[in-house]
């Protein structure tokens, strides 16, 4: 079946929905989502969305932009960060005006809280910048945008999985998708395609990410020859629930929560004397792993799965139930811990991809050498880059609303002048062949063991601390798993609602992105932001103040670079 649209948005999280609302004003637009839209992972974001509203104290977008650049260890494109911080204010008001139920201050304005790495006067001290709705800000953003899509009659194709991108040279023609209900392939012809497919934390064993976060967009683009940017930078959030990785928002520390080691010591005093527990996430995660390695984790056995305490018990019952009610519930449900009474056991959890599909500030896919006509990306799938080597808390929600909106606006303009491409049923042949192979393979392997090995290799060898030897091993082991992947067979021979086929395709995407991540990491011989190497402990601006562009070349990774925009603030050592 061939569907014809001006614009196709792939993914129905915050970025995709915002883009659809904008593009849909004038362009014939469809949203393709592998889930029902309200299941998207934007809904799991907790702590807030950063914007210099100044509702609590003086704040400016310029300070926000500076914090973003410094937080990203100067690998951030600085004009993009400026746009991020300036547009953030407009986007937050727009969301509120569309009904988003933010928590309120006593004067009835949007409530704001402290968050890691957000400061006033270029680093002098913490600032209340994170606009929040209790600890379910992402849920409210997703709900509000989805509600607006209902209001505006946006057209959705739910439970459609994208499998191929159609390009003519460097111009988009559309996408090929797999419909879960029927098992059929649908071709979408479109002048513009936006990939807003979210992150890919499911590469790792311990992650805060949903099972759906398998990087489908970046993986499909990589296979279509588009190199991915800065994939070595993957954020480990310092406070995941021990063993499970479920996120405990930085908002807990924003409200006054404190990290402690086995001796009850507030160890952040040694690592970030000014910002303490509100230092950026990469530094806090490293501090935790350093404490654990020194035997000061709670178990004290120095193993990487040891943990530390996050203590919010001194905040009192009322603050816990009002400001972090969902966290309190997660702790009770999964740990039998009441955070108003006892500390929470936490460990770093794979959380956010700073890297992804290279784009400009209007969401256009731009490798620095080639700009693809009609091809867009936004949200976590994209790399603008506003997060550089380490994203600040709250900036993921800022990113997706600011750049989702900008991409949607650009698409609306672009499709007016673009001529209609031609896509036909035959464009699905490539995907069809793959499906037939999967379905006809006899006595093949299960998904489980390969996925489990990938999880362990990535967690163990491309985690918080890295060395050349271990990253090289990771590359080799992932290459091996990519070969073994070819032996997987579908057991479910039915056509309709065959979720197993989806899971196999998702595993393929994760393996491809694991390879690119490990390859990019092994190549960068410095420490910067979330990429910290024991064998190269220092940042090396002379050699490495540049973005990585990593392409998929058979079972290997090809490397190229692109300059960083450092036109506003000169890189400086990063202390907090």
């Amino acid at each position: 079946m061939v569907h014809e649209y001006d614009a196709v948005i792939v993914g129905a999280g915050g970025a995709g929905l915002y883009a659809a609302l904008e593009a849909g004003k004038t362009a014939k637009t469809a949203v393709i989502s592998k889930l029902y839209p309200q299941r998207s992972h934007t809904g799991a974001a907790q702590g807030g969305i950063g914007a210099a509203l100044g509702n609590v104290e003086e704040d400016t977008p310029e300070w926000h932009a500076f914090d973003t650049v410094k937080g990203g260890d100067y690998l951030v494109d600085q004009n993009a960060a400026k746009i991020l911080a300036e547009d953030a204010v407009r986007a937050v008001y727009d969301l509120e005006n569309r009904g988003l139920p933010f928590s309120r201050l006593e004067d009835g304005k949007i409530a704001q809280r402290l968050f890691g790495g957000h400061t006033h006067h270029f680093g002098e001290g913490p600032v209340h910048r994170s606009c929040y709705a209790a600890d379910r800000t992402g849920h409210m953003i997703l709900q509000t945008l989805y509600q607006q899509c209902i209001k505006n009659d946006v057209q959705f194709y739910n439970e459609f999985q994208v499998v191929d991108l159609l390009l003519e040279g460097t111009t988009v023609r559309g996408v090929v998708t797999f419909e879960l209900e029927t098992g059929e392939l649908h071709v979408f012809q479109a002048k513009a395609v936006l990939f807003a497919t979210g992150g890919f934390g499911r590469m790792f064993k311990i992650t805060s990410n949903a099972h759906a976060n398998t990087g489908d967009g970046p993986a499909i683009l990589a296979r279509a020859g588009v190199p991915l940017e800065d994939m070595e930078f993957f954020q480990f959030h310092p406070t995941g629930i021990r063993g499970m990785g479920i996120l405990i928002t930085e908002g807990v520390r924003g409200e006054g929560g404190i990290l402690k080691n086995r001796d009850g010591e507030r160890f952040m005093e040694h690592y970030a004397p000014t910002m303490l527990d509100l230092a950026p996430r990469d530094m806090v995660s490293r501090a935790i792993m350093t404490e654990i390695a020194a035997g000061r984790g709670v178990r004290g056995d120095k193993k990487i799965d040891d943990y530390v305490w996050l203590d919010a018990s001194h905040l009192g019952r009322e603050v816990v139930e009002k400001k972090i009610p969902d966290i309190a519930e997660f702790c009770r449900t999964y740990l039998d811990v009441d955070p108003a009474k006892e500390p929470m056991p936490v460990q770093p959890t794979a959380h956010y991809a700073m890297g992804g599909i290279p784009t400009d500030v209007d969401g256009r896919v731009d490798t620095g050498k080639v700009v693809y006509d009609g091809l867009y990306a936004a949200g976590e799938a994209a790399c603008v880059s506003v997060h550089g080597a380490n994203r600040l808390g709250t900036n993921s929600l800022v990113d997706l609303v600011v750049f989702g909106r900008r991409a949607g606006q650009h698409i609306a303009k672009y499709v007016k002048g673009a001529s209609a491409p031609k896509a036909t049923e035959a464009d699905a042949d490539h995907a069809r062949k793959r499906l037939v192979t999967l379905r006809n393979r006899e006595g093949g392997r299960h998904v489980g063991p390969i996925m489990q090995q990938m999880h362990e290799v990535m967690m163990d060898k491309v985690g918080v601390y890295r060395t050349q030897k271990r990253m090289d091993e990771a590359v080799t082991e992932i290459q091996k798993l990519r070969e073994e992947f070819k032996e997987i067979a579908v057991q479910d021979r039915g056509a309709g609602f065959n979720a197993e086929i989806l899971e196999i395709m998702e595993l393929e995407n994760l393996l491809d992105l694991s390879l690119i991540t490990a390859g990019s990491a092994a190549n960068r011989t410095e420490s910067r932001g979330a990429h910290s190497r024991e064998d190269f402990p220092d940042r090396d601006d002379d050699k490495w103040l540049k973005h990585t562009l990593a392409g998929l070349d058979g079972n290997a990774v090809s490397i190229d670079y692109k300059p960083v925009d450092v036109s506003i603030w000169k890189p400086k050592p990063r202390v907090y």
Partner: protein
Amino acid sequence: MRVILSIKRFNPETDSIPNFQTFMVKVEPTDRILDALMDITQNQDGSLGYRRSCAHGVCGSDAMLINGTERLACKTLFKDIGVTEGGSVRIEPLRHLSVQKDLMVDQSPFFEKFRSVKPYFVAREDAPPRGEYVQSQKERALFDEATKCINCAACYSACPVLDKNPNFIGPMAITNAARFLFDSRDKGVEARLEGLDTKDGVWPCESLFECTRVCPRDIPITKLINLTKREVRKYRKGRGELTAEEMAADKKTTEEKSKEKRA
């Protein structure tokens, strides 16, 4: 520990009736039911159908019947339902929605009903030229509970009224209307009468509290439904009009009277 999952399976492509299939799974008491389901699909039988995503109770994908009660598979631990070594768990799809395959149900009627109440912001007045609408903490608190809804359909499955009246819009739709009725910035009930004040709208609810009992987000749904009924009555009364409920009652009385007359 080893436990048995007894799962109600049905594939309309091949089966004429559903049947229970058992799987032996190795789990910890603190594992989620979802962990066991994923172990089955990834290592035993890839054809088992169910939905899941976030795995920690915020996306609403994996509501199902666990030992006869609506629960999220990712928010239910084996120890929560008292399963120990050698024990078993019965797992079935949600009720009131047709089965697509195994534990997957067709949610489209559920979402259509949700849409019928206009579950989106309808501003009472124009937005300020720059900045936010001002809303006091007290006003904000009035609709907080309803904002927690994750559209998981547990309430819709548990509602006994839907057994006899499948057209009832159901607890989730009303909860999401209530989300806006009590928001000081929203036009409220006036904008949503069409969906609420009809015979299958808010009125069929009999306050049986099953929705409230099963809600994985602890939303006091029955309370919100009753507040919504009150709001509709208040609005109609203020305009000297009858609610759909009152009109139906009037009609019934008239019919009974004429019946009496004939007798």
